[in-house]
């Protein structure tokens, strides 16, 4: 029986930049297609559709600037951040853009009065469908890429996998409700003040939709799956909130221990997936990183990690 050694999973910044830059290239393509579609169908669109291009330009420039910032800012684990965070969020935005464009052109070709895509259930459904399709595709692709990054480096005949799940309690709902609620409120106010999409007279449902999505997220709650293998520890979450998943290669771990933790409002830390007040697994890496996840079986998980590390 043999066990291999495993990759640290840290790649060069250039490798990460190519991933992020390809996101930017796709995003720019979508914006270009959007403008081209509006320009070529201009004669068949209502006059008010002119506002649309300025609205898109504003939001898309902000989005592209955010991506470029992601590329430029120094991070200790660029590749991991790109695969597990930027890919799902980025594809979610692409999905919203593509669905929004489709709905807008569909509703407004050869009509006299301009209609926002949020103004009907069909439009809202299309945009939500685009967002979810992009998000799930991003999670799937990110998961595949992360699995490849954390693959067993050497052929190993013995393989182990330990699984556990954790769900939120009231303390998570309070903390996340405050955090995401404040953000949501600020975004609605900002949109109301700056974008034609929220201007007086535009359809109201967008605000209700945002508040409804927020309430749905709090009620349904987050859910995390923890897997420990002889290659890595992975934490995958179900919903997009301030608790993103993370993964750490086994060879990167300096120490693992069971701690007591509780969700904290206004804390955005990707490496901290605390869904309950109670026991949690804390991982410290050789590069100084600290990761945590709520886990009732934290002591058992520590024992599994130690056993796998000692056998590696």
């Amino acid at each position, binding site marked *: 029986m043999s066990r291999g050694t495993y990759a640290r999973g840290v790649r060069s910044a250039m490798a990460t930049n190519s991933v992020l830059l390809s996101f930017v290239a796709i995003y720019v393509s979508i914006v270009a297609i959007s403008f081209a579609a509006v320009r070529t169908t201009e004669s068949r669109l209502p006059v008010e559709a002119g506002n649309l291009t300025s609205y898109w330009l504003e939001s898309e420039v902000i989005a592209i600037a955010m991506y470029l910032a992601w590329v430029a800012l120094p991070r200790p684990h660029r590749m991991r951040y790109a695969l597990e965070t930027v890919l799902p969020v980025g594809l979610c935005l692409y999905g919203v853009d593509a669905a929004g464009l489709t709905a807008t052109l569909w509703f407004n070709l050869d009509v006299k009065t301009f209609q926002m895509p949020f103004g009907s259930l069909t439009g809202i459904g299309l945009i939500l469908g685009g967002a979810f399709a992009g998000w799930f595709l991003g999670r799937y692709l990110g998961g595949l890429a992360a*699995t490849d990054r954390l693959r067993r480096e050497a052929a190993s005949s*013995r*393989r*182990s996998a*330990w*699984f556990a*799940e954790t769900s939120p309690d009231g303390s998570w709902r309070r903390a996340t409700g405050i955090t995401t609620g404040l953000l949501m409120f600020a975004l609605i106010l900002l949109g109301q003040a700056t974008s034609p999409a929220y201007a007086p007279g535009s359809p109201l449902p967008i605000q209700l939709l945002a508040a409804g999505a927020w309430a749905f997220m709090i009620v349904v709650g987050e859910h995390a*799956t923890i*897997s420990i*293998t002889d290659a890595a520890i992975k934490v995958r979450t179900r919903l997009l909130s301030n608790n993103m998943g993370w993964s750490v290669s086994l060879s990167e771990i300096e120490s693992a221990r069971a701690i007591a933790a509780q969700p904290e409002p206004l804390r955005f830390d990707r490496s901290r997936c605390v869904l309950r007040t109670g026991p949690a697994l804390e991982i410290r890496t050789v590069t100084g990183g600290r990761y945590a996840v709520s886990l009732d079986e934290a002591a058992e998980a520590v024992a599994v990690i130690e056993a796998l590390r000692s056998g590696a």
Partner: protein
Amino acid sequence: MLFEIDTLSSAPIYGQIAACVRRAIAGGALKPGSKLPPSRDLARELDVNMHTVQRAYCQLRDEGLLELRQGRGAIVASGRVAPSARLNSLIHDLLNEADTQGLTTAELARLMETMR
């Protein structure tokens, strides 16, 4: 729960996965109603084919240890099957051990007869 397989073992991988679940049920680590990881996730983490995991789950369902429900995944069946689960686990371990030592099933049966 912990799944462990050895790809160099003569026992089939689906049998090893099923044995892990049997042991966990027999030992009380998996209680009735406990949910097992989705076959896709388990296959990915063990680096095996998803159909291999599904075959293991189907075998356990046929033994009455698991319930496979569309959309809910694999769930440990109610406590009534616990005694046979323990017996199943012991028999499978015995067969695996016999296989490791190069004994055929007939030779094992003869050995058991002599011990009665």
